[in-house]
């Protein structure tokens, strides 16, 4: 006996109710549950759909699908990180390294010769902060809309739009930045520190550009590469 289309639909709802919100994982789990229920029916045709489903769900253990979801998230985050790293490395290869060096040199010269070096230094950092908050806010709204629209969601799509674990990373060196601002004579009048900070700020700019612009623009390409079913459903 095979499962009917409404029963398959019920399995999709069941996975959603058990915190599997992404279509890629849902469809794999639905097929698994459906196969298992059909096998049970071969052995015991009198078993109801709900009873068979209950037996199968229990096999996933006390945490249900959580383990599968969490491990999948971890795997996709790792994949995202490696994509970010690949793009970052791109800026240190020919021809993009010219841009990286020019930006670092430009910032270095400004920090070296300007009378307002500490303000420019902290100002650049804070400007990046504002850009980050704006992007995170825009993304938060878009994710909320996607959830409400009921359209199919893909875990890797959300990893890309949530920037892996990188959202908010700019807050990490805040104290250090303020410390430099308060002691410009120690740091910004020293050649080596100034080169180092210029490079650090340029790296941050590149990093944000990669996670906020480059990767989202190529999201569809990455999704097609990750999910063969994406093309069938979306395009």
């Amino acid at each position, binding site marked *: 006996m095979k499962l009917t*289309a409404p029963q398959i639909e019920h399995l999709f709802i069941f996975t959603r109710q058990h915190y599997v919100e992404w279509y890629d994982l849902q*469809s794999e789990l639905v097929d698994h549950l459906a196969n298992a229920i059909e096998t049970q029916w071969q052995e015991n045709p009198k078993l109801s759909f709900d009873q068979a489903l209950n037996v199968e769900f229990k096999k996933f253990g006390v945490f249900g699908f959580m383990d599968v979801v969490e491990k999948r998230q971890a*795997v996709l985050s790792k994949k995202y990180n490696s994509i970010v790293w690949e793009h970052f490395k791109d800026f240190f290869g020919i021809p993009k390294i010219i841009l990286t060096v020019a930006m670092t040199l430009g910032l270095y010269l400004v920090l070296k010769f300007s009378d307002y070096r500490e303000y420019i230094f902290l100002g650049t950092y804070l400007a990046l902060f504002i850009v980050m908050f704006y992007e995170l806010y825009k993304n938060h709204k878009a994710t909320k809309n996607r959830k409400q629209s009921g359209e199919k969601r893909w875990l890797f799509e959300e990893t890309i739009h949530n920037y892996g674990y990188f959202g908010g990373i700019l807050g990490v060196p805040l104290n250090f930045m303020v410390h430099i601002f308060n002691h410009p004579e120690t740091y910004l009048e020293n050649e080596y520190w100034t080169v180092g900070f210029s490079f650090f700020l340029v790296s941050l700019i590149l990093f944000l550009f990669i996670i906020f612009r480059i990767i989202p623009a190529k999201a569809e390409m990455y999704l097609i590469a990750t999910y063969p*079913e994406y093309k069938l459903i979306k395009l």
Partner: protein
Amino acid sequence: MKNSQLYKGSLNTIIMKLLEENGKMYGYEITQKVKAITQGELNITEGALYPALHKLEAEGILDVEIEKVDNRMRKYYKLTEAGTKETVNRLAELEDFIRTMQSLVNPKLEF
């Protein structure tokens, strides 16, 4: 999974070996195949199988294919070229392990 601690480390190799023999397989099929081969001795739990498959896929050892079967999508896993090479290494490693364990558990003492 029966005696999960002992079998856990070999789960990936078991999956790779099955795929080497059967070409492409889907998750449920793998659990059933293992059950049948081991005559019910070894039951791969769903909570362990899918994370293992997803990890192997991310490592480039497995590739996925989607087919529409009945009224649902089915995700098949198969070995990539790199995965096929890696399977040979892992099987050799596992066989070494089995031999070592055997000599430890069942030593032939010579005087």
